[in-house]
């Protein structure tokens, strides 16, 4: 006799369960944690490089870097003053998942830190679907990518808790319609906190740093 078994289980529930476990570990150690996502070249690592010196002496930071290959980003984070930096090489996978972060957390003495920054693989599609267990998801957009990205990558823009708009120093040179961009953001993620800034000139970085520090203290 054929039998129908009701299941109603989310396909990504295995990842979600492990993400919950990651969150429990992070919270038990008293850290604030962010998952930084962006397209390749938007400035994730540059933002980390510019963030770390501004947090020195105030906030102890661990950085976990996800890339398909190389330890270039973890090296840059270490050089910029991260108290610890762990590189995850995904070996081809286009996003970090909770299992990978779980493995990275094993390598860190979490109590030694106040802030955990996870730098995801450069990709505007897949990372949005795999929760890691971090407190906040941060998307870094950048002016040269173009103002149509919220419309083209709604899944990513819809799910984030904060939005950095990097490379605003290039606005005079690039036909980027900020109104159009922000209308798209507003449609997908009403009221999301936004930090327009330039890692190159330092403009706008203070607000971003304040947001991080406030969340770390909370």
């Amino acid at each position: 006799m054929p039998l129908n078994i009701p299941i109603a289980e989310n396909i990504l529930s295995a990842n979600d369960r492990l993400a919950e476990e990651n969150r429990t570990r992070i919270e038990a150690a008293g850290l604030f944690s962010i998952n930084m996502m962006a397209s390749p070249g938007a400035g994730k690592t540059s933002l980390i490089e510019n963030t770390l010196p501004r947090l020195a002496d105030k906030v102890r930071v661990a950085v976990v870097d996800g890339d398909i290959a190389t330890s270039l980003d973890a090296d840059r984070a270490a050089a910029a003053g991260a108290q610890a930096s762990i590189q995850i090489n995904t070996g081809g996978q286009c996003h970090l998942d909770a299992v990978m972060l779980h493995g990275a957390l094993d390598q860190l003495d979490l109590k030694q830190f106040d802030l955990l920054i996870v730098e995801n693989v450069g990709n505007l599609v897949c990372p949005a679907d795999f929760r890691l267990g971090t407190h906040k998801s941060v998307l870094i957009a950048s002016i040269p990518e173009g103002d149509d990205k919220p419309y083209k990558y709604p899944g990513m823009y819809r799910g984030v808790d904060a939005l950095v708009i990097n490379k605003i120093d290039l606005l005079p040179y690039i036909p980027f319609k900020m109104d159009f961009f922000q209308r798209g953001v507003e449609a997908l993620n009403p009221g999301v906190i936004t930090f327009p800034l330039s890692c190159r000139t330092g403009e706008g970085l203070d607000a971003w740093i304040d947001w991080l520090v406030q969340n770390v203290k909370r």
Partner: protein
Amino acid sequence: MHELPITQSILDIALRHAEKAGARRVTDLHLVIGRLSYVVDDSIRFYWDTIAKGTIAEGARLHFQRVPAELLCLDCNHRYAPDDETLACPKCQSVRVKVAAGDEFRLESIDVETSDSPSSLPAGEGEGDGEMKCH
């Protein structure tokens, strides 16, 4: 997006429930996919044959139920299906909206044959599931 690990997850969930129920074979999987979850059914079908091979779910049919997107306007509470051009509320033009439906991605149910119900197969043909060409 990343249909290979997703297909693996689908299989893992199906097998876990099938084994718990003492199933001998999984014949059908019923999946619910929201329009907004960007899963490509053809890719899942493509990987399925390879991934399910040698398991009790080999040859099982995949059924996809697509759930249309529905948005809820946070200003006037209007629930509507967005068109492709704009997500804004058609009633009050507000862009303060949230997804009410369409981001689902779940395994709703599976159809199995249980080991204490061999009636669906003539005697002697229930062995060697890995060899069976289903459907």
